[in-house]
């Protein structure tokens, strides 16, 4: 969804008129979340039902958080546009720090005098304040000429967050406790998840790219390949894992464990890779191919020097889609006995341990987001300036 340039211009102008509606929306979400939703949830132990606590019950830090939210709303609604571009990132930074601080204080206060097995987990309100805060950061980007303020604000936010983590009691939150209890298991799951996803992705690239290249030259291969991988894509991942058990068993291979996992993930990763390789190569202007052949390039020279560089950005884009897909489905593979992050999530579901669920889900999201951003950057870097 890249917007046309004209659209961009309009968006960039909109904060100039009166209130910044985007920033105001973000701040308003934060204010409402502060007032109405639980900032934290207290539990006597890991799995019993919890009692919700709003920000205001977190003592002075909670009131400060609310004040910062209201101040951010005021900035979004009332500040002059020229000033707002500079103050908005600062309010976003202040909100980030205030939230971290309030969470930490709430955890410390609620757990004071309670047994060590008591837990304070992050409530819906805190998530929404964080979302509102992200919107504020996002809105601040549309102001020209305030880049240095944004950088400074980001630095302040990082420092404040680190402070909250070190001395503000952020470490008292249940997810940190959960991590402390399961450090080894957590990192093993992260490792398995990455290995499984990365290995399958590599395998899919090794199979998919040549298939895409061949599809360009061999018509029947194109229709069958794209048809088959397209069909596989529609099959629910859990069903595919279930179905794989039987052919594997017939071959005397284990129906559970890493093997079906790798097979399933590779199959899912194939579609975007094969399709994008094919589309990228077939999109090369025939006149360019003709010129290359006319100058005496052999088939492989044409592929390596002309077609591949032109198709590469699209191929990497396909690998990116595949990577995001595979990181997500690797979680489901936990069901057939592979220790990915899915194990933590599903175990958490089993015993209703919210912290365990988060411990599995959050790194999965981080992995997907990092893979997405990294491969996007790689695709940009692999695009010749001549075709950018």
């Amino acid at each position, binding site marked *: *969804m890249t*917007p*046309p340039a004209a*659209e961009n211009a*309009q*968006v960039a102008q*909109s*904060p100039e008129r009166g209130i910044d*509606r*985007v920033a105001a*929306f973000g701040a308003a979400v934060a204010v409402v979340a502060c007032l109405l939703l639980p900032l934290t949830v207290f539990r006597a132990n890991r799995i019993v039902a919890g009692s919700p606590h709003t920000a205001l019950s977190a003592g002075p830090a909670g009131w400060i958080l609310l004040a910062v939210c209201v101040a951010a709303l005021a900035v979004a609604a009332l500040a002059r546009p020229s000033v707002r571009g500079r103050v908005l990132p600062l309010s976003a930074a202040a909100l980030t720090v205030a939230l971290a601080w309030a969470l930490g204080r709430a955890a410390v206060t609620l757990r004071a005098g309670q047994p060590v097995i008591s837990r304070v*987990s992050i409530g*819906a309100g805190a*998530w929404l304040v964080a979302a509102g805060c992200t*919107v504020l950061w*996002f*809105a601040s980007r*549309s102001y020209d000429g305030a880049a240095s303020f944004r950088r400074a604000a980001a630095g302040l936010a990082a420092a404040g967050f680190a402070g909250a983590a070190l001395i503000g009691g952020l470490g008292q939150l249940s997810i940190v406790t959960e991590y402390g209890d399961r450090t080894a298991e957590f990192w093993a799951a992260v490792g398995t998840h990455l290995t499984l996803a990365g290995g399958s992705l590599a395998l899919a690239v090794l199979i998919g790219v040549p298939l895409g290249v061949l599809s360009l030259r061999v018509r029947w291969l194109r229709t069958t390949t794209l048809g088959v991988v397209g*069909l596989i894509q*529609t*099959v*629910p*991942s*859990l*069903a*595919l*894992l*279930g*179905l794989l*058990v*039987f052919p594997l068993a017939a071959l005397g291979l284990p*129906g*559970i464990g890493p093997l079906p996992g790798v097979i399933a993930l590779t199959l899912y990763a194939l579609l975007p890779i094969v399709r994008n390789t094919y589309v990228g190569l077939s999109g090369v202007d025939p006149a360019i191919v003709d010129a290359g052949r006319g100058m005496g390039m052999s088939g492989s020279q044409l592929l390596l020097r002309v077609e591949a560089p032109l198709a590469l950005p699209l191929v990497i884009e396909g690998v990116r889609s595949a990577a*995001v897909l595979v*990181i*997500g*489905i690797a*979680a*489901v593979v936990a*069901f*057939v006995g592979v220790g990915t992050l*899915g194990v933590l*999530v*599903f175990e*958490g*579901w089993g015993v*209703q341990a*919210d912290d365990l*669920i*988060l411990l*599995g*889900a*959050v790194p*999965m*999201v981080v992995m*997907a*987001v990092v893979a*997405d951003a990294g491969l996007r950057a790689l695709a940009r870097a692999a695009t010749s300036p001549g075709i950018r």
Partner: protein
Amino acid sequence: MKRRRTGLAAVAAAAVAFAYLVSRQDWWAAALTRLFPTLTQAVFPSATVADLVTQHLQIVLISSAITLLVGLPLGVWVTRPSGRAFRELVAASVDFGQTFPPVAVLALMMPLLGLGTSPAIVALSLYGLFPVVSNTVAGIEAVSPSVLDAATGMGMGKWRILFTVEFPLAARVIMAGIRTSVIINIGTATVAAATGAGGLGSPIYSGINLQNGAWVLEGAVAAALLAMVADSVLAQVERAVAPTA
């Protein structure tokens, strides 16, 4: 035109055949018993295949309906002058949301909403939102400005233009987004069975937990067929709403 009609007929026939197959519990029982003669209980005991498919479809249809009710207006709104300020925010959120693993969305809903069918529905409708909004915006923005100019020049009002010009021209792209959304939902709903949402994931989970291969096969085959039939039906709809034949 003729090919389109044969395509529609084939897909309709496949859907009817699937429905009939699902209703014949006796066939499933016979087939599974034949394939797994050693198992005492070769058929998932808690619900018939028809019930499981119905549950599954219920979850998917409700969440897709919510997705459409929210996603279409949201996508349209950010392309109108009144919502244009939010276009960038929505586009960025939707791009970001699409990188989220579906299981993670399910997982993150759990602490907030607990177990059962409704949190699954909330998670599915949220996750399904991303392709619908993304394609609605892309489809509407792809309508050429000169067409809009011509429509305005002929004296058509904003709403009229939206319904008689923009929607028809964007229909195929929007429908492609809906198709993606529904197919992802069918898949994620299978996983959601682990949170107690029911549906075709249940026999697969129970089968894996109790080492009953027949149940796994029962759920997996039904889920795979359901997804394929739904995908081809939606593919036909997508083709049918395309502006040019």
